[in-house]
């Protein structure tokens, strides 16, 4: 089982399971109250230089409040897992190239810079094209598999993506021959983020979480992360969790902080709660075109703002959120 090819991309996190085990050996695992504010959670659990990852897909179910707080607290030199990272990546890039240091230092890329059908983020392009952020290439699935490897406690997982491409050449994956079948197979290294943030529908005070709709890679990310900040639409009693344990997606022992943040995925979409605010996202893309206008925009929507509630109040407040709820349930179409 020789290594047939080794990608030349840098590895931004240690894939060793034995070293990860040493960390998890000391992680608290009792059912204790973890409720705190987002500001406190970011202060305690997100450090300069950390490898950071966040949940959701595109603009759906993203932990916006945590990203705002990372900017407000001025975290520096983060490494990041960009797996269909749209508005979240846009937010992290707002910490670079604007004279406030360098929030983003390196990124594992599956999909960044773009906002799917909405187009590319001008500022994210600026930041990546400047060369100041070091990049390694992956794909949505292989990056998700790197979380899965970490969650499984193994140093790598095999996959048949990447083969034959420049994406492989700029990844940190390698190619081997399967000892059982001789088939060529790619091995991707485990990725244990130092800290992750995931937005969920419901959580109890201990961090037992429920998610409705697609789970993307979040079940694996939650288990892979050394520290985990949960934001939730609603806190629920532990008794509710125990009434139907089949619905628990993330168990408490993965979680370090539980923050109740209603509308926490705004301006993204939260399935069964509210649709994305496409108008506000367009404002972001438009403001980014001019660097001075973007600075002013960030002041207004992030740096002058105390907390997440004040943010969405500046974006139209409850009437706007009611409209987005109507869009989510298609009520605006007379259904």
């Amino acid at each position: 089982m020789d290594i047939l090819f080794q990608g030349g991309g840098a590895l931004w996190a240690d894939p060793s399971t034995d070293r990860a085990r040493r960390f998890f050996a000391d992680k608290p695992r009792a059912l204790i109250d973890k409720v705190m504010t987002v500001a406190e959670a970011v202060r305690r659990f997100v450090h300069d230089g950390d490898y950071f990852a966040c949940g959701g897909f595109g603009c759906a179910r993203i932990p916006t409040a945590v990203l705002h707080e990372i900017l407000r607290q001025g975290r520096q030199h983060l490494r990041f897992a960009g797996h269909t990272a749209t508005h979240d990546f846009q937010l992290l890039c707002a910490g670079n190239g604007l004279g406030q240091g360098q929030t983003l230092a390196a990124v594992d890329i599956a999909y960044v810079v773009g906002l799917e059908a909405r187009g590319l983020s001008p500022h994210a392009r600026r930041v990546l094209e400047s060369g100041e952020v070091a990049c390694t290439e992956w794909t949505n699935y292989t990056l998700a598999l790197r979380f899965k490897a970490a969650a499984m406690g193994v140093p790598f997982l095999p996959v048949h993506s990447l083969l034959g491409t420049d994406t492989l050449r700029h990844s940190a994956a390698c190619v081997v021959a399967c000892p059982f079948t001789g088939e060529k197979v790619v091995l991707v290294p485990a990725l244990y983020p130092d800290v992750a943030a995931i937005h969920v529908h419901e959580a109890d005070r201990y961090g037992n979480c429920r998610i409705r709709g697609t789970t993307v890679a979040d079940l694996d990310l939650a288990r892979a992360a050394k520290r985990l900040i949960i934001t939730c639409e609603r806190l629920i009693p532990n008794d509710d969790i125990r009434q139907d344990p089949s619905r628990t997606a993330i168990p408490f022992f993965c979680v370090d902080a539980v923050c109740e943040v209603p509308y926490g995925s705004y301006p993204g979409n939260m399935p069964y709660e509210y649709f994305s605010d496409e108008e506000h996202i367009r404002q972001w893309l438009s403001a980014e075109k001019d660097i001075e206008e973007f600075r002013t925009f960030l002041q207004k929507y992030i740096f002058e703002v105390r907390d997440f509630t004040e943010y969405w109040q500046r974006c139209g407040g409850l009437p706007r959120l009611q409209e987005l709820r109507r869009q989510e349930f298609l009520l605006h179409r007379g259904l």
Partner: protein
Amino acid sequence: MSAAYNAMELMICCAARLLEDGRTAAIGTGVPCAAAMLAQRMHAPHLVILFEAGGVAPQLPTMPISVGDSRSFHRAVMATSMADIMETCRRGLIDYTFLGGAQIDPYGNLNSTCIGGDYARPKVRLPGSGGANDLASFCWRILVVTHHDRRRFVEKLDFLTTPGYLTGPGAREAAGLPPGSGPYRVITDLAVLGYNDETKRMEVYSLHPGVSLAQVRAATGFELGVREPLAVTEPPTPAELLLLREEVDPHRYVIGRC
């Protein structure tokens, strides 16, 4: 209802017709989604669609904006993980996928990573693979729907993000990609293209009404063969246009882009 149609409508109809009934398609937003919805309403009521973020067989009330938004699993039979979808593709259960890119080469390889400069300091940084490399490695037949011009149809990609036939016959298999999978059709605003069975290079299958072969070649940055007899693309039928405009995309999110 006019029988006239725009290029986007034609492309969607061409794509829809390629999707056989009883098959599965991992699709994205926009044209692929419209094509699948149209196919379901025309000849393929049992076409099953999946979105990579986890939606299986949704009943789409409207076009999703993202392959992960609420619409992508509206009244789905399952809302699952991305890994579950990708693994379903990898096991060989998914027949079609639709991909795009800033550049495509004669072998159907795609670039969606960067253009110009070098990798560390590109002139234009693009999103990267997303799920495209995975889907192109796993699904049986890759379809591309794209605008046709020389900047896009290039002899050599600036970056090979997503595998087509790589360097030609046998190259996918040699790289370790599954036998029998690969690029299938490219649908542009000028023509429907496929791949030569021997050389695995792109060639023109049919020209859209009013388009000449010279026009297609002029818009293509590499030598382009022809599959004989070269056909003329069937224009959209009134039935197709009616469904497309009234049911699939009444708000003209996609068909209005032309």
